[in-house]
């Protein structure tokens, strides 16, 4: 394959394929020589990647389809195929554009860190993984990009590896996503043999023409969805997403906005016809609706800024999944696009806040930042409004579309849960914003933002652009849908929904502002009630899912199965092996007695010996 990369004619594709990895190595090596160079390499490569994506967007005529020879063994041929259509280009623009903004933002955020070369090398590798995922045509190629992101997220989450919590969070992220990934590996093998192809486009075509075996399609679709559950943080594999907040905030922005968590939705969207062919979408919709509910309720009570945003990511990804699950590719993908932009904006603003507040992450310890950081406050407010789904911000349109599709689809469980999740988002994001920016600074001693002063230009620029985009993009919602889906999409129409949603949001908004600005003492009174405490604990710990999975892996896998195997290995197998030594010795001792020197003993032994021989001969000859 690597010999043939040169034969790719399209300069944009070549850049996207090579530049991230080359840049990654270069950023590390040059950064080791001079620390600032790492940033500049990353900045240039990030810009290049974004330009390449724009180039592909502009020069697009028909889908790019390139086949490279990769592995040929026996009668199995696994080529490396590249396929770029509208869906890929949208994902590319998100990944590289937001990635570029993220790199730019990191100039100041990571400015003091001595490990910058490592940071930028990993970030470029991460973006490279996402690019690889969205431009490949085969499930194997997609899996490679998929796993690259797993590795990069592991490396970035445990970037401060010397911290206990960061190292554990990295391990958790890798193992949780890996659990999903092995299902994809199994799906590759199954599809390769039973469907005869692992070509994502061809699988869709086969599903459309009804050639595929339904059982196979259902099983493999669910296997691939297991991978998506791991990567996109759905029920039950979501706890890693929250603990991933141990990494630098820029990394969170990258994971939650630009790259990793979108990959699960992308793969389902890419295989949409394949999913549509079976009942898999029903399961997708219901798992996602449950996750949306879990995410949005847990986000209500979190203390850390980043954890609130993480749970909101989980909830919003689930909303996008519900969009796909209820059969509306347009709604799901639109929400993915909008979410990626406003979530990157929110995380970067949160990064700016944390930077200004000297790494205080607890929202309850902040407050009153409005005066010192008005720019950040405005940008974050715009992101929040978009996330909450307030018109005319982009979040409103896509969320409305998903919820309406869900009601049209007719499954009560899905529709109700996703509506609750969509409504609650205004509550937790308002709570977050109010806690950070309004009121008086709490715990004065712990954050003294006089030192860093205001946010720097390096930070404001990407924030401002993203804030602008999240507003401007709402003008182009139907164009985006049209671009991705390729045909006119009928808007789902549920008469009462818009009015209901808007009034619900207004009420929730009023309640939250009233409680958190005016009536903090009332809030504390409510919270101190025993029943509320229980509810609070359940929500705060994410429905104890992490505790459950940890318990299973610790007590069942490690301490029961693995330990049992170890016992069997040591005390049965190896015991038998070592037992050959005393057995040999006992054998020797027993027969040593025969050498007594007494003639009677020898005669007796001879008689027994002859008898055995005679019996043996008779047995063989006569068949006695």
């Amino acid at each position, binding site marked *: *394959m690597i010999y043939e990369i040169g034969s790719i004619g399209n300069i944009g594709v070549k850049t996207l394929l090579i530049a991230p990895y080359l840049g990654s190595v270069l950023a590390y090596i040059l950064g080791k020589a001079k620390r600032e160079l790492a940033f500049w390499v990353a900045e240039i490569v990030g810009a290049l990647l974004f330009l390449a994506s724009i180039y592909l967007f502009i020069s697009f005529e028909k889908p790019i389809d390139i086949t490279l020879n990769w592995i040929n*063994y026996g009668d*199995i041929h696994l080529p490396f195929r590249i396929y770029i259509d509208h869906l890929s280009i949208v994902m590319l623009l998100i990944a590289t554009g937001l990635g570029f903004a993220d790199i730019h933002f990191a100039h100041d955020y990571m400015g003091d860190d001595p490990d910058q070369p490592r940071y930028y090398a990993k970030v470029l590798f991460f973006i490279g993984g996402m690019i690889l995922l969205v431009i490949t045509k085969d499930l194997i190629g997609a899996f490679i990009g998929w796993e690259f992101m797993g590795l990069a997220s592991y490396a970035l989450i445990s970037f401060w590896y010397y911290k206990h919590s960061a*190292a554990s969070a990295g391990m958790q992220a890798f193992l949780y996503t890996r659990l999903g990934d092995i299902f994809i590996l199994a799906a*590759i093998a199954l599809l390769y043999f039973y469907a005869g192809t692992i070509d994502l486009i061809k699988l869709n075509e086969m599903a459309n023409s009804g050639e595929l075996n339904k059982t196979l399609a259902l099983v493999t679709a669910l296997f691939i969805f297991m991978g998506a559950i791991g990567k996109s943080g759905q029920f039950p594999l979501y706890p890693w997403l929250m603990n991933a907040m141990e990494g630098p905030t820029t990394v969170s922005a990258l994971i939650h906005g630009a790259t990793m968590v979108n990959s699960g939705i992308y793969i389902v969207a890419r295989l949409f016809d394949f999913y549509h062919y079976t009942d898999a979408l029903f399961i997708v919709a219901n798992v996602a609706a449950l996750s949306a509910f879990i995410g949005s309720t847990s986000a209500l009570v979190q203390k850390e800024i980043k954890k609130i945003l993480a749970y909101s990511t989980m909830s919003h990804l689930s909303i996008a999944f519900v969009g796909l699950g209820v059969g509306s590719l347009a709604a799901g993908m639109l929400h993915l696009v909008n979410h990626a932009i406003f979530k990157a904006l929110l995380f970067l603003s949160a990064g700016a806040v944390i930077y200004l507040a000297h790494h205080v992450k607890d929202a309850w310890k902040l407050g009153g930042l409005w005066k010192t950081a008005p720019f950040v406050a405005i940008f974050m407010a715009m992101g929040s409004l978009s996330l909450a789904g307030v018109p005319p911000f982009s979040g409103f349109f896509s969320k409305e579309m998903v919820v309406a599709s869900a009601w049209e689809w007719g499954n009560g469980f899905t529709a109700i849960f996703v509506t609750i999740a969509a409504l609650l988002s205004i509550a937790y994001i308002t709570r977050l914003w109010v806690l950070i920016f309004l009121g008086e600074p709490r715990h004065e001693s712990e954050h003294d933002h006089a030192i860093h002063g205001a946010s720097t230009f390096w930070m404001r620029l990407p924030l401002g652009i993203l804030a602008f985009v999240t507003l401007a993009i709402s003008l182009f919602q139907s164009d985006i849908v049209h671009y991705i889906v390729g045909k006119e999409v009928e808007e789902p129409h549920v008469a009462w929904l818009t009015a209901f949603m808007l009034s619900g949001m207004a009420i929730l908004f009023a309640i939250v502002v009233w409680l958190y600005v005016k009536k903090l003492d009332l809030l504390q009174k409510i919270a101190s009630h025993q029943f509320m405490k229980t509810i609070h604990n359940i929500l705060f710990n994410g429905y104890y899912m992490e505790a459950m999975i940890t318990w299973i892996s610790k007590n069942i896998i490690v301490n029961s199965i*693995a330990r049992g195997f170890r016992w069997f290995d040591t005390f049965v*197998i190896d015991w038998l*092996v070592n037992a050959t030594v005393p057995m040999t010795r006992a054998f020797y001792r027993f027969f040593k007695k025969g050498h007594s020197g007494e003639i009677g003993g020898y005669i007796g032994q001879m008689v027994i010996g002859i008898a055995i021989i005679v019996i043996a001969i008779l047995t063989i000859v006569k068949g006695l």
Partner: protein
Amino acid sequence: MELLVIFGPIFFSFFVYFIFRNSPETTKYVALGWFVVLFFLSLNWYHQLPPEGYMVLGKYLSVPQFGFELTIKMDALSVAMLILTSALLVLVVLTSWEEKEQHIYMSLLIMFSGPIFGVFMTTNILWFFIFWELTLVPMLFLVGYWGAEERIYAAIKFFLYTHVFAMFMFVAFFMIFRQTGVWDFSDLAGKENLFKTPFLIWWLMFLGFAAKLPVFPFHTWLPDAHVQAPSSISVLLAGVLLKMGAYGLIRFTVELMPETTKHFAMVMLIIGIITTLFAGFLAIYERHIKKMVAYSSISHMGMVVVAISTVTYDGLSASLYEMIGHALVISPLFLIAGWLHHKTHTWYMDEMGGIMKKAPFVSAIFILAGMAALGLPGTMGFIGELTITISAVKAYGWWVAIVAVAGLISAGYIIWAVRRAIHGPMSPLVERTTFTMSFPEKLALAIYAILIVYFGVNPQPIFNLANQAFAFLGGN
């Protein structure tokens, strides 16, 4: 030339010892030079290979009365093994750069290179057996003298275990000669009907190779031997000696008796899967870093057995790839595990911690090799796991997709090991240790890392060899 390659080292290693015993430092250059020569010689043989089948290099020491001779014949599989062996030997010299009593150590290594080349070069079953047994002799001393605390127990267990099981093989070889009158196994390929008791012969041979591989339940010698052996010798044990088992399995079961093998394929498959999963779980439970790596090694060899059991063109190609991948991936893990023990004087991962801060280069290589061991794309481990899974599903049906679970189990032990030993806050023990590594060792680790990534991205060179070796099985 061929005779020199095989018998030269056996005799000249004594001269090396006597000549250089007063300047032990020189011996490593002699060994390095000899192994580099072997490496290029193997590459040369690779270029001379015919597109299919065997290349006859010569017949020596013939005893016409018995039709017995030292037949030196090679095909792509042998050459692949020779290239792997010589490359590993070169790297082993680099990583034993600071071993004590080098004149003896290097002499033994040189002595080892003779019979191991013989094993892969000859097609005469008796000579094959002789070389097979001769490789044990230098290994016994290398483990027993340069090893860790319990080296004597480990060396004797290793020697007796493999020797006893080799006896089964010997009986089988003798029966082959009695029943067919042919010493050269390459002449017997496809003439399975000549065997009068094929099942018995198959099982005896399988036992011999299974203990060498090793597979469940004959694996308990391996953790002991690998842990007690010096790291470079662990590399040889894992990279070359285990490969002898897999090589024998391919040569004598698949090539010699394909029908019987297909008859027992299911047994092999089950044994392979059990080995993979069982050893994987043992590795998860292990606190001892080198034992963890040793169990990981067993687990990967289980995958090789799964691939061999398919008895198809593509399955065997995948097995050859995994064999080479396993050698290159597990070696740096063993080296680093041994090096960490050498520096910190502890085997236990929970007593380490935070090593990344003090030894970033070694930690990075450990993580890279670990990622390869758990099958991350871009490394050799992934291609091995992927191709084996595809071939196994193709041969047996959907339920074999369960071997994919190996990818999760290996992720469990590798990532947990990284979490405990490499990441995390620095433990007091690591705090007071100074981590230094000589340049040749670093060079060797870097070469391993480059090879793992190179063949992971561009696996076709190895599959070309495999296609040449297994084309006779034909596509289906």
